[in-house]
């Protein structure tokens, strides 16, 4: 902005003698907006905690649903969620960290292929979650799964909704999260450490493996935890790639369907035959899901702020 533009934009000052009511109004308006956001968060969290805490007992988190999901617990949903995010992280973290290392340590920042990768990462993060669900159905189940069944001469084992396909769909959805946080972590490692390592005769990969990665661990963990928290809460991508309404048994293999906390919330609140009887269970499930994502996010935020503090200290 040029100096000219700056001065013409400034209001005339001869009015400034009386008290600046419009200024007060504007400042108060911004504070009010912030307060409103805080209030809404407080109301939501308060409502869920108030109606949910009574339900969440040891039995609730360890027992299976009974009597058409109007009684009993949510253990299968918790188990399914944990199995889902573990599979997702195993598939996701190596790729995400590898991509981050490539982008930060190998690729020339302005080369065309670097820009293509960055463009893809940014836009992958903006694809609607329901489109990931469609992709999981069209690619993993209809294409990969069906092809595997045909090649192995099986009936229908892989070509149907399953834990594995849901986990891979979520892994792709969370790929940008892990890449971005891991790259941020690599950025906190000072250049001198790379130079020292290379000067000692270490190769590029040795430098990464023994100098950079140990230092980037908090950032990589942050990304993994954030992706787990997002993965545990996303329902749209697993709607038709593996989540089940109700299962009398726990998933035994990656080709089984599974129950999931977020999907359970959706099912209980939209498809319950008896809304009043389900309500305590519903609130309890929401509270468990919220506590789970909240704790994960808290851990990630703390890790990240420590990492940023280190970065600020170095600059």
């Amino acid at each position, binding site marked *: 902005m040029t100096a000219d533009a700056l001065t013409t934009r400034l209001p005339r000052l001869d009015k400034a003698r009386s008290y600046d009511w419009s200024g007060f109004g504007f400042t108060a308006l911004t504070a009010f907006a912030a307060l409103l956001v805080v209030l809404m968060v407080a109301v939501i969290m308060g409502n869920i905690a108030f109606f949910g805490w009574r339900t969440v007992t040891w039995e609730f988190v360890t027992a299976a649903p009974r009597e058409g999901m109007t009684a009993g617990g949510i253990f299968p949903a918790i188990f399914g969620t944990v199995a889902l995010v573990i599979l997702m992280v195993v598939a996701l973290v190596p790729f995400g960290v590898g991509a981050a290392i490539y982008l930060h340590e190998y690729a020339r920042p302005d080369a065309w292929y670097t820009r293509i*990768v960055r463009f893809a990462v940014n836009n992958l993060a903006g694809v609607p979650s329901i489109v990931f669900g469609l992709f999981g159905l069209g690619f993993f189940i209809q294409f990969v799964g069906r092809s595997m069944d045909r090649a192995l001469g099986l009936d229908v084992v892989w070509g149907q909704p399953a834990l594995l396909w849901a986990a891979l769909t979520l892994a792709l959805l969370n790929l*940008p999260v892990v890449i971005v946080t891991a790259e941020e972590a690599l950025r906190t490692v000072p250049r001198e450490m790379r130079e020292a390592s290379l000067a000692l005769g270490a190769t590029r990969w040795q430098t990464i493996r023994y100098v950079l990665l140990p230092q980037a661990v908090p950032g990589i963990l942050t990304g993994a935890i954030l992706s787990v*928290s997002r993965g545990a809460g996303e329902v749209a991508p697993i709607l038709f790639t593996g989540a089940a309404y109700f299962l009398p048994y726990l998933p035994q293999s990656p080709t089984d369907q599974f129950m999931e906390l977020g999907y359970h919330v959706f099912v209980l609140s*939209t498809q319950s035959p008896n809304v009043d009887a389900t309500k305590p269970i519903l609130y309890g499930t929401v509270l468990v899901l919220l506590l789970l994502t909240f704790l994960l996010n808290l851990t990630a935020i703390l890790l990240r702020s420590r990492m940023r503090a280190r970065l600020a200290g170095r600059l």
Partner: protein
Amino acid sequence: MTILHAVAPPPPLDHSGRAATTRRRALRLRESVTAFLLRVCAFSAVAGLLLIMVFVFREALPVLVDPVTRHEVGVSRIFATPLWQPVGNLPKYGLVPLVVGTLKVVLVAMVVAVPLGILSAVFASEFAPTRIREALKPVIEILAGIPSVVLGFFALIVMASWLQAVTGSPSRLNAVNAGIALALGIVPTIFSVSEDALRAVPRSFREASLALGASPWQTAWNVTLPAAGAGVAAGILLGLARAVGETMIVLMASGNAAITSGDVFDSVRTLSATIAAEMAEVVVGSPHYAALFFLGAILFVTTFFINVFAGVFVERLRRRLAGA
């Protein structure tokens, strides 16, 4: 932390002829293999995006080319039919009510979320004392961390009743209810992108304005906000893209009746919610299946262009502030 611990001892130097050469060759091989593997990882993101495009479009393609499917859901029919009734003797696949429904919900969400997000970002970056700002940001992060199915649940079970008591609208679940819940989902996006942009404005801008006698709010409104304008615009666009694609909130809170009307208190059905609600019961390969993938393709293309546009604004902001 000690540097000594972070660095592994370098391999012992070995100058004795053949052994050293093999060793060096093995080392070089390992270097190029790892470099190749890392490149594969990086391009997995590109491959993922391309595969999404290919497979969503591939399943939607019958709407354009397959004669049997086109008989029911050809493009001319999709835009001319005023009704979305995919089940029945004579299925009707009209996009109009779904597009109108999506626009209504997104409009409500943006009307609520844009002022809330931007004003609280201005408050956090320009006016708030440090301690309040440090308290505000985690709250926004908490809001960002609430799964959308929980926001949907809250809008469906709790907020809808409150709103109905206030507005007296006949349908409990409607575009306003879904729009407000959706706004809660996108406020964090608008807030954090705008706040980053505002804080990236160099201090010298503010100091120049204050030195010329402008008050803090005049500085915020006339200098800082315009300087960060491109970033704020990017925040709004990213929020818009999320609002268009968000599924669980609208699926649970909007009532899902495919009505074409201008009234925001009518129940609405959005593009995303239609896919989510109907895909589970559809026969693979049927016209209905292709039609739902066609909706997915529309969502993908729309959000893709909004995001690319947002990226242009981010780039513009970066250049502008780098040049300042």
